[in-house]
């Protein structure tokens, strides 16, 4: 069973990190769109209440207030809003803004499912999609892929393109009937669903359930991009970059990455930034690259965070700031970026942006090395060889050097 509250936990840790720099953290003030949301909620609009509750829960546009979030979820749930019922159930289960209460949690999950089943019985395909998702991800209930697929099939047979897309996805995931998965993806794509067009493109490129056809894959990506799908634009850029289904063209690749970035795709922001930082597909432009990294980082892209940190640590395209670099390395590291973990270790070793702490540095080198980062392996080797942060141990130094040279991706310290 998984829960969806992790964002708020991340936001909280980010806020805590911000205090490390002793830089002022301004109190967010509601902007006009949020004021509209507030007015609608005050007028009794349950959907607005539910959305506003999320805002208070994550501190997006308002000071974070889990108690206020809970109250809004409760009001919206009592007004009959199924998403709010599930959100309320999760609050009771996790004790966020209210004392934990498993019984209440189960009650509200049951109410949400009953309400959705009633709507689905009247042909509401959004309710079918929601039920399929609830059982797929185990939101408040045990994971039940069979039941999930039944609801998605109902939605698909009722002509809902979104249900068709996720049904295709579910079938690809189970690897049971590739032809059927391609069939549902095709139907959804032909119905104009951009996500399905992308899925069809991926299936064609992989030859999954269909004869491999890179040119058709590219054509579907182009269709999705023409409909404004940011991810499709990024994938097009990547295909031009690698010359898949089309002649390699770095300038065209950069153009699509920038389009995708402008449409809000965080991964594309990072990739466009990397191209501009090096000068591939266009003139080298480090300030523009740093702007892309900044955008990607704020959108939550771990690689974007890492590259922003590198830019900050080296003053490349952005003012040098070791403290901020450390914060962004930390955030990227928290999201599994081994290179960021290694670089953060270096800051600890050198006392740059953070207080010097060799033990912290060594621990992070080991973490990065365990994730396969070759630089961290080199650094550990040097540390053991020279006795920096650890006792001199030539055997371990040699072991880490050997691992680094082999580029072993699953190396772990003995």
């Amino acid at each position, binding site marked *: 069973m998984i829960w969806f509250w992790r964002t708020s936990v991340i936001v909280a840790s980010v806020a805590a990190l911000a205090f490390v720099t002793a830089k002022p953290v301004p109190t967010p003030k509601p902007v006009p769109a949020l004021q509209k949301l507030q007015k609608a909620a005050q007028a009794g609009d349950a959907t607005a209440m539910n959305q506003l509750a*999320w805002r208070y829960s994550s501190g997006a546009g308002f000071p974070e207030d889990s108690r206020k979030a809970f109250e809004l979820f409760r009001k919206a749930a009592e007004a009959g809003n199924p998403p709010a019922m599930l959100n309320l159930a999760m609050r009771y289960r996790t004790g966020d803004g209210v004392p934990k209460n498993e019984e209440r949690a189960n009650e509200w999950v049951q109410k949400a499912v009953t309400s959705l089943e009633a709507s689905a019985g009247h042909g509401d395909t959004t309710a079918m999609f929601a039920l399929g998702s609830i059982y797929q*991800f185990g939101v408040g209930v045990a994971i039940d892929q069979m039941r999930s697929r039944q609801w998605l099939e109902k939605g698909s047979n009722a002509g809902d393109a979104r249900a068709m897309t996720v049904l295709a*996805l579910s079938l*690809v995931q189970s690897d049971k009937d590739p032809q059927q998965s391609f069939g549902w993806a095709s139907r959804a794509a032909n119905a104009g669903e951009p996500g399905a067009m992308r*899925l069809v493109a991926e299936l064609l490129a992989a030859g999954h359930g269909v004869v491999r056809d890179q040119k058709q894959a590219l054509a579907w990506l182009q269709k999705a991009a023409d409909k404004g799908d940011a991810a499709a634009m990024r994938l097009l850029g990547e295909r031009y970059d690698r010359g898949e289904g089309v*002649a390699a063209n770095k300038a065209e690749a950069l153009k699509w990455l920038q389009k995708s970035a402008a449409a809000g795709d965080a991964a594309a922001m990072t990739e466009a930034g*990397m191209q501009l930082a*090096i000068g591939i597909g266009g003139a080298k432009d480090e300030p523009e690259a740093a702007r892309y990294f900044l955008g990607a980082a704020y959108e939550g892209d771990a690689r974007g965070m890492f590259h922003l940190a590198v830019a900050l640590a080296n003053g490349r395209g952005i003012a040098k700031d070791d403290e901020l670099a450390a914060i962004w390395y930390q955030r990227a590291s928290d999201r599994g970026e081994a290179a960021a973990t290694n*670089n953060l270790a270096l800051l600890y070793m050198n006392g740059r942006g953070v207080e010097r702490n060799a033990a912290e540095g060594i621990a992070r080198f080991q973490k990065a090395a365990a994730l396969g980062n070759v630089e961290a392996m080199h650094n550990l080797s040097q540390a053991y060889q020279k006795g920096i942060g650890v006792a001199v141990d030539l055997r371990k130094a040699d072991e880490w050097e050997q691992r680094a040279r082999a580029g072993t991706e699953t190396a772990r310290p003995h």
Partner: protein
Amino acid sequence: MIAVLAATATTSVFAPPPPKKPSQGGKPKADYSDWNGKWFVTCQAENFVVEVKVSNPKTSGGHTFDALFLPGGGKCEIGADGPQFRTTFLTGVMSNGSVSGTIYLCTKSQELVDKNQLGAIFTRHFDASYEEGWVPGGGSIVNAAYKNEHYKRYDADTQDSAPKEPSPTSDAYDRDEPGDEDSGFEMHRFQPGVDKVTPDEPDSQTNPPQSGASKIKQKAEDITHDGVHEWMNSFREWLGGPRI
């Protein structure tokens, strides 16, 4: 000691700083040990990993520079004798901020193979310089030039681009490599998990080439991963929450 190194280290506190180009007034690097290992290459629109070997890396002066393909890599698909696997990618000498030698390239034009019976692999003289990259792993090789020969289709009417020597097989075409631009070349230390190789290329000695079936399975998993992430976001939107 650490404090002394701090000013230059980006990714390795212990390693000496990457070499500066002669035009920047930097001293030639005295230790190239950190160049030995896996490098990530983009060339002829393909991404692959090579093993770089620099001779006598701890001495000053010139060094031999060899970049070898990993086992199973460097495949040249087309050509009269194709497919062929290259073992060497680059072999040359590095000195004073530049690398010069021979690059081994794949024939890319089926049309030219048909007309001229070209071999799958051909070589060119290679010149490049290097500079400090800002991705981890030290220097990257840039400003590569290796197309010192460039033939075009022979136009009988204008007699434009006539080859310097008569073609042994046909006078309709001579060698050209469409889409093979020098500017598409880039080479830096391999970053596992960051650098992505072209399918069919091995990215590490610990990862032998996959079978066709397992490649398709891997690709299916990739599709699922991205799609499920989007599905979750779509569901989160229904819940009223932000995307992740």
